[in-house]
């Protein structure tokens, strides 16, 4: 270490003083992206028409008004909530399991939701995104509960390693059941194909109002985990020494993740990468303090998600590309770049 470099404490303090305004700036960026998401789409609608529709906030029956108010506004709000939920859920999972690859997918949430959707299609014969939401939600929560229960077996409780293994095992088990069913049922395959890509299309007000309460409560609760996650990051024994109830923290964190990722996956299908990559970016900006990582993840993730969705809507007019596909194409190289060029903070 060179003599001229400032002591670490000053660096952290300086960082903290910049992080507050940074959050405000991110809020402004999110607002700008949300505006973009309402004004841009697979159909060209003049800005004045969009603004007129927004001002009156009443569907006057014109196509531009219907599209703005009934398609784009709910889609944008859903994108913000789902993005925020996935980002913060990923950050919490990475913190609580101390696993840099943790996200909703690795904890069995996507496979649980998919398995329940397939069950709903094949056994109960239901159809349509509006109904799948609730099955997916139940499936996500059931899978996460199962992962936690399996990892909790044994005296030492749900350790990070056991959580990762249980998550992988439950994911593999549920995924093979799902593919077993869809291989023999072409209807289920067709239905699941759309759900499984992850999309904000075709999700309107009923879905938004259905999942919004869960997501809002979950997001509020998630922000309270900063200090506890900082403690866990020091290692379980040290956290215990600092007076933390490690087991209780973990259960509470998992409950919040189940609600957030469960509701998000239920609404839009399994959306990849956001929950995995965004917390790393947040950690890169904020350093190891979860009191900052969580709100940063909560704002960065919807920005990424909405931008990807807008991109998917404008590249293939009059068709559109699902946001899950755009994220996979755009985010995978971004993740590689982050890993290659940025020194990632340790989880």
């Amino acid at each position, binding site marked *: 270490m060179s003599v001229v470099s400032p002591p670490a404490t000053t660096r952290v303090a300086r960082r903290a003083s910049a992080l507050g305004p940074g959050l405000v700036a991110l809020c402004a960026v999110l607002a700008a992206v949300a505006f973009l998401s309402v004004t841009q*789409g*697979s*159909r060209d609608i003049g800005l004045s028409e969009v603004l007129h529709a927004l001002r009156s906030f009443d569907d006057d029956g014109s*196509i531009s008004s*219907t*599209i703005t108010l*009934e*398609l*784009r506004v709910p889609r944008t709000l859903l994108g913000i909530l789902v993005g925020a939920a996935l980002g913060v859920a990923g950050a919490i999972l990475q913190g609580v399991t101390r696993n840099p690859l943790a996200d909703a997918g690795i904890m069995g949430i996507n496979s649980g939701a998919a398995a329940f959707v397939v069950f709903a299609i*094949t056994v109960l*014969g239901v*159809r*349509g*995104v*509006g109904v799948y939401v609730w099955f997916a939600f139940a499936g996500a929560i059931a899978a996460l509960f199962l992962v936690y229960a399996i990892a909790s077996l044994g005296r030492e409780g749900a350790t990070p390693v056991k959580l990762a293994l249980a998550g992988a095992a439950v994911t593999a088990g549920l995924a093979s059941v799902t593919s077993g069913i869809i291989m*023999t*049922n*072409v*209807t289920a395959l*067709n*239905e699941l194909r*759309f759900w499984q890509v992850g*999309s904000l*299309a*075709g999700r*309107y007000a009923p879905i938004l109002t259905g999942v919004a309460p869960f997501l809002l409560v979950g997001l509020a609760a998630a922000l309270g985990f900063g200090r506890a996650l900082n403690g866990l990051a020091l290692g379980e024994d040290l956290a215990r020494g600092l007076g933390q109830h490690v087991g209780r923290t973990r259960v509470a964190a998992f409950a919040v993740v189940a609600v957030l990722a469960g509701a998000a996956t239920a609404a839009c299908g399994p959306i990849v990468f956001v929950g995995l990559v965004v917390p790393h970016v947040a950690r890169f900006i904020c350093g190891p303090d979860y009191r900052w990582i969580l709100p940063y993840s909560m704002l960065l993730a919807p920005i990424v998600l909405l931008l990807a969705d807008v991109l998917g*809507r404008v590249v293939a*007019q*009059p*068709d*559109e590309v*699902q946001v899950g596909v755009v994220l996979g194409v755009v985010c995978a190289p971004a993740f590689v770049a982050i890993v290659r060029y940025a020194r990632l903070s340790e989880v």
Partner: protein
Amino acid sequence: MRAWRPILAVAVLSAAIAGCGNNTDSGGTAPAAAAGPWSFTGGSGQVVKADKAPTRIIAHAGEAAALMSFGIKPVGIYSDESVKTDPNLKNLDLSGITILGEEWGKIDVEKAASLAPDLIVGDWWPAEKAHSGMEEGVDEKSKKLAELAPVTGVSQGKSIVELAEGYEALAKSLGADVDKPEIAANKKRFEESVTAFKDAVTAKPGLSVAAMSPADDKLYVANPEYAPELLDLQSFGLDVLDPASPDPSFPYWENLSWENADKYQPDLILWDGRSFTATANAEWGKKQPTWFKLKAAKAGATVSWPAFWLHTYGDFATELDKLTEAVKAADPNVGG
């Protein structure tokens, strides 16, 4: 038949496989075929030959229905969905016929081999250069069906009428008496239906229709170029819309995002029969904010479109009659 797959096929779930595997020898009740060597030129242009006319035939669903309409009963059938719901098969007596598959891309080849077939009949799909049951995406194991016996079939090309005529020729070569009165009656009924349809269309100048398939994330508009029954309707004088930019990788459809649902404004919507129900229009109006931006949908001007399954004069006649009624009831000024 890959055209099934891009959209939400809302076929009813397959029921349990109807096992009739023990009656393998009761099929093949074809009338005595002409003795001597047999040959048939399929839709691919390939000629299949045999020492005598085949009698133990395995056929794909609609093709089987076509042969059965001429009195040729196959020994085995493979279908894309449950034979109880397949539009070609659901009203037919399938007793004595072994069911070899009730799902797209899955054929029980072992069971098929036990039937000792001497001919496999499946439509030829020119866009995919394959017979039904041997297209890309079909199970590799299922494709081995083609090794059991020669494969032939009529081309799913530009017309259901040509398809029906092709199967009539095939049935005739297999020994069917295609001049039987009930067959002639079906043909006559079809011709009458065509005449009635043409009259109805002539009486509605300016009526435009589009074939569509609404799905959760998109609206699919059918491209008549790859839907023979729509080409037939065009040839009968109906103005069926040709979408401007079909999906290049899957030209059966043009995909419209729901924001662009009103890109086309037909006066009457032919709704994919695989998802059409009496209440579908109202349901979609409720659930898709832009569905009723299609003026025809708003006005309730929708009718089931027999998408990609017709094979026989009889079925085509029945479906045409329904379309005739819809054309008669349609208002050519709805779409504007």
